Every structure is written in structure tokens, then in C-alpha cells.
């Protein structure tokens, strides 16, 4: 089998899952022998490429940019992994959902609570509009593998990547692999 074309994506999340990925430490050298990192916030590639084998998607779908990117990722990727609790459940990113529509929420945060200097954030083309409700990735596009955890600990990420590299069926069970939080 050739080298895997791996991508990592950062949607509505805190980047903690990517930090945990970096916590793989020296095993990253091992991983580098099996993969080409073709797209990632760590790799500075502007366009999501074609024919990606595996994508680790961190974060929930929270705005229009996320919607666009995740659909592109799905079209161009063989195995899409919901990477961490925000991608799997919405998690902290979705805490705004019970509070209602995003406009009212933004107004409270940026105008009401700021006093006289407050104004609504408005920068078309730069700031993507928020979607009404933050959603886990699988509510927008089909997901192949779910890796819970906030963040998923490095050994959990490694165990998954080892299964992916080995090929065959992916099986994640037990506290070490699927505990949320």
C-alpha cells in the first residue's frame, strides 16, 4: 500500500484536538513514514486537495465557511473521521444553541454588555456568518469514524491511526477509546 494522503481540518473548535495530535511526540516521525500531510492548519495549504485518504475533522459546524469546507472535505475524502467531542457531539461549541438565534446572542455580547463602545461585528468576506444552530459533523455530511474525547488523548489518536494504516475494519470500544469529555 502506498503512502496515505492525510488531512486535518479545524472547524468550530479550540484546536485542542490538534494540540493532542502534536502530543503524539516522537511517534509523529513514525507516522511520517506512512503518510503525506496534504492539508492541515499545521501545513498552510490553501485549497483542500482531491483524493484524500483520511481526514481528521476537529470542531463542530458553526458557520458558513465550515459548511462549505466540510462538504468539500466529504466529496474529496475516503475516510472522514469526526475528531474529538465538538465534531462528534457539538460539545462546547454548541453551548450557544439553547440560547437562541446567533444575531441576538452577538448583540448581547458585542453591544449590550460592552457599554457605549460596542458594535456588531461586521466584515463581509472576512467574518463568516454564523449558522442558526451549531451541529455535529455527522448532521451535515456522512461520517465514517467517530473518535470522542475533549481532546482525544494522544494514545487514542495513535491507536486509531495505527488501525487506519493497518487497513481492515476499524473498531473503537471501551473507556480508553470512546469516553466523552
Amino acid at each position, binding site marked *: 500500500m502506498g503512502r496515505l494522503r492525510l488531512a486535518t481540518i479545524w472547524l468550530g473548535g479550540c484546536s485542542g484536538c490538534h494540540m493532542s495530535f502534536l502530543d503524539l511526540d516522537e511517534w509523529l516521525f513514525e507516522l511520517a513514514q506512512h503518510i503525506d500531510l496534504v492539508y492541515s492548519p499545521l501545513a498552510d495549504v490553501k485549497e483542500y486537495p482531491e483524493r484524500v485518504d483520511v481526514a481528521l475533522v476537529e470542531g463542530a459546524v458553526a458557520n458558513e465557511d465550515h459548511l462549505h469546507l466540510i462538504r468539500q472535505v466529504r466529496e474529496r475524502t475516503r475516510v472522514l473521521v469526526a475528531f474529538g467531542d465538538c465534531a462528534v457531539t457539538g460539545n462546547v461549541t454548541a*453551548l450557544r*444553541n*439553547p*440560547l437562541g438565534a446567533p444575531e441576538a446572542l452577538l448583540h448581547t455580547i458585542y453591544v449590550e454588555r460592552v457599554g457605549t463602545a460596542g458594535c456588531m461585528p461586521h466584515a463581509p468576506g472576512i467574518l463568516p456568518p454564523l449558522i442558526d444552530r451549531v451541529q455535529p459533523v*455527522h448532521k451535515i455530511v456522512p461520517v465514517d469514524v467517530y473518535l470522542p474525547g*475533549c481532546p482525544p488523548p494522544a494514545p487514542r489518536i495513535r491507536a486509531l491511526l495505527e488501525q487506519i494504516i493497518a487497513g481492515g475494519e476499524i473498531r473503537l470500544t471501551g473507556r480508553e477509546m*470512546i*469516553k*466523552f469529555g
Partner: protein
Amino acid sequence: MAARTFTINDQLISAREGETILQAAREHGIFIPTLCYLDGVSAVGACRLCLVEIEGSRVLRPACVTPVVEEMVVRTDTGRLREYRRMIVELLFAERNHVCAVCVANGHCELQDLAIAVGMDHVRFDYAFPRCDVDISHPLFGIDHNRCVLCTRCVRVCDEVEGVHTWDVAGRGADARVITDMRQPWGEARSCTSCGKCVLACPTGAIFRRGATVGEMERDRNKIAYIVAAREQRW
């Protein structure tokens, strides 16, 4: 007391008369998942996680309230039961706002443990994202309805062990909430003795000690059964 002999998963089990399937299974080290069940208070069969198959019975039975019958043939771990249990746990997660990452009970939560036990790696149902209150009007304890699964352990322990009945359930369906006194803020509920038994009984992070932060809310749920046993021996 008469003995009853029956089988669980092809294993011959002997139980005391009046024992439930759950009690007999536990005594023989057979795991049946539970959530609303709590040693020391009455069983109500509310959460449906302990449903089992009984040969000859068309319907599934909750093991926590079904007495053992001679020669009964019970199955606790069939494909159908596993699928139903996972659905139940997923529905519980979808119904309120359970965010393990920022929960006081993270790492010490029975709902979180159940998710692992039933192999829940994601929730297939749409999340309801309901708006729920947090009441921290009590000087020692708080209740976060985002994390409540309506197991009614708090209601039962307050009524049956403390003998007070500060807690109850109001509303129906998705609007059901556990309440204190006449749906007053907990801090104004005059009947509450601040004994903390509800804090001990809660399976999730819904009822917590004030000041506890993420993952800090550990509790010894066996204390309830201990209190009850100590009392029964004295009286």
C-alpha cells in the same frame, strides 16, 4: 425462605424468594446496566436500561422490578437488547445538554459510563438543545437541569430515606423537571434539611456541591444503602 432456581444466559442461578432478576444477577456477577436503580431506595423501572428477555414473554421486562420465578429463562445480552440500550442512552444524551468536557461529574458519571458500556461513539438522534435552568440558590448545593436524566433518585432518597420529600417531578414529557417544594428555588425550599442525600444519589452532574469544578464531583453512591442498612439493623 424458599429458593428459586432459574437461568440467566444459560447459567443456572439460585435466588431467594422475592428477589428480583437484577438482584440475583448481581449476586452472581452478571452485569445488567442500570441508571434509575439505586441500592437503598425503591426500584421504579423508569429508565428501561435493565430490560431483559424472558422466554415465553412477548414483552421485555425491567430486571429491577421483575421478581424471579421458578424455572424462568432470562437473557440479558441479546442483539436486540444491546441495540435498545444504546438507543436509550443516545436519547438521554439528545434530550438535554450533556457536555462531559465541562461537567463537574466528568470521569465519575454513571451516564458517561453507560455510554462506554453500550458502545456509544456518537448520537444518531437530533440533539434537542433545550433551554434549561441552573439553580444555585441553595447555600451548599446546586442543580443543573441541563444534566438531569429524570431518574428520580433524588426524589426517592429524599422521600424514603430522609423522610422529607423536598424533591418531586413537575411537568410532562420534554418539559418535565425535578423540583424542590412547590417549584420554588432550592434555597427557598423550607422543607430541605440540607442533608445532601440527593447529592450522593445523583448519577450525573445534575446535583452537585457548590464550588466543585470540572471533574471534581465525586460521590459515594453506596452510602445510601449503608445508611439504610445501618438503620434496619438498629431498628
